[in-house]
């Protein structure tokens, strides 16, 4: 069979295909409503839902809940009739499958293991995702766009969230499910998995690009300057820029909020930066220390 068809019709992967379809559908629907509301606002008209009246719960809401419940139940039942949940061979600690994949919703994090050591990819970054999500309402002080779809009024919030959600979370999941084969090597859907395939891809560390051993004292110092410089510079430079061009914004945010936003933002951006470093420049580590590597 065509390997692509084989991959997308694996029972557990059908869920991923459904996810791609649903997420795409709702993404389009959300942005379509956002742009529509923006047009309404630009024309001085009320946005969708602004003039809504209260209506009785019994029966309009209860009715629609019942209909949706039945529809979902039918859908899941049909799915369960057509596709059987997989049950593989009995667990065997001596037989490691290749690739050994985490559950699909963690494959974005497993994908990060290509670019970061486990303490970052598996512990620190997931923790920061959760902390960052919980922090969103407290660091986003823009009062607009509360209770309706809009893009114009919350451009940056929506762009940053969408980048994190669609690219860094969902796209990496899709890559982990469909494009990673034995040895976690990249396979296009039409390629056969080859368990003998080895890619010799010599990686280097950042400082060795300028001829300095990353494990030497000089390499340690330069790597440290780059890493800490990225964090500090990422916090200080936007501050100075805004101080000059938009001091009211900084005033409104306050120091703690500003620092939290920028820390979360530059941590998030370190993921695509490290990906480019690894994929384009074959850089494995930026900074090697006796305790950890970044």
């Amino acid at each position, binding site marked *: 069979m065509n390997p692509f068809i084989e991959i997308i019709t694996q029972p557990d992967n059908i869920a991923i295909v459904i996810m791609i379809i*649903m997420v795409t559908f709702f993404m389009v629907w959300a942005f379509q409503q956002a742009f529509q509301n923006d047009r309404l606002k630009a024309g001085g008209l009320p946005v969708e*839902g602004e003039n809504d009246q209260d209506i009785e719960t*019994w029966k309009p809401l209860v009715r629609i809940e019942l209909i949706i419940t039945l529809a979902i139940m039918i859908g899941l039942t049909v799915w369960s009739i057509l596709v059987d949940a997989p049950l593989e061979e009995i667990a065997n600690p001596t037989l490691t*499958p290749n690739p050994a994949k985490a559950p699909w919703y963690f494959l974005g*994090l497993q994908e990060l293991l290509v670019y970061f050591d*486990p303490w970052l990819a598996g512990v620190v970054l997931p923790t920061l995702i959760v902390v960052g999500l*919980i922090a969103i*309402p407290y660091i986003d002080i823009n009062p607009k766009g509360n209770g309706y779809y809009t893009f114009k009024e919350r451009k940056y919030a929506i762009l940053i969230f969408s980048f994190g959600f669609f690219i860094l979370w969902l796209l990496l999941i899709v890559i982990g499910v469909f494009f990673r084969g034995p040895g976690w090597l990249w396979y296009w859907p039409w390629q056969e998995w080859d368990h003998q395939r080895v890619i010799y891809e010599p990686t280097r560390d950042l400082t060795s690009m300028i001829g300095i051993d990353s494990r030497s004292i000089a390499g340690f110092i330069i790597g440290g300057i780059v890493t800490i410089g990225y964090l500090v510079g990422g916090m200080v430079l936007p501050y100075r820029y805004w101080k000059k061009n938009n001091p009211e914004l900084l005033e409104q945010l306050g120091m703690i909020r500003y620092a939290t936003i920028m820390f979360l933002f530059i941590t998030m951006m370190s993921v695509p930066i490290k990906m480019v470093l690894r994929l384009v420049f074959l850089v494995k580590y930026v900074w090697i220390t006796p305790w950890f590597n970044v």
Partner: protein
Amino acid sequence: MNSLFEKVKNNLVWKSVFRRDYRDTVRDRALAIFGNVFLHLHPVKVRESAVKLRYTWGMGGITFFAFILLVITGVVLMFYYHPSVDQAYNDIKDFEFQVPYGMITRNLHRWAAHFMVIVVMIHMFRVFMTGSYKAPRQFNWGIGVILLVLTFLLSFTGYLTPWDQLGFWAITVGTNMGAATPLLGYQGPFSEYLHITPYNDVRFALLGGTQVGGNALLRSYIWHCVALPLLSIVLMFVHFWRVRKDGGISRPQH
């Protein structure tokens, strides 16, 4: 026909269950909601937008429905399952091939679980896109994030229970991350200063051992069937309660 209705309704048993006749008045329509322990999760009146599919997409409610379905199918599965290395795998095989409707029940549990993870993520996206986390709903967004994490963990702990290759290695890969925890995992940075070894680190606590075995199976089973569902139910109460107390479905402010 009418007299038959009368007979059915006009007796002590019927009246003890349904206290009053439904007459389709404003009062009775309100009573239908707050006179019912399940429906009184709703307010008596809601905004039109709460009924329009295009605004909420019904995603939070669908997530809750998936959860209920998972509890029901999960309880059925529990009747036939022993969380032990010797029995777990054969129990699932028996359930599929010997128990009436076993296969479809397990399928429903599996697909509803995947579905719940998908839907809860889309719910979060909707709440973000409508700015519904903004005042006064900041706290409830945080509860929602924790419920999202609990959904992942519920699914994750359920992976191991069939004791097949898929679950075994997915859990091995996942819990290996625990060993990399800074300070508290034996491979994590700085852990040597706390004298952390493979026998006292985070991964050991997760697995009840140094590798996925009988203790890990028991732990994942208890987390999956008891601890995490209880925690989720408590937080769901808070989540739904706060939706009401924070003013219901979000809407444009005037």
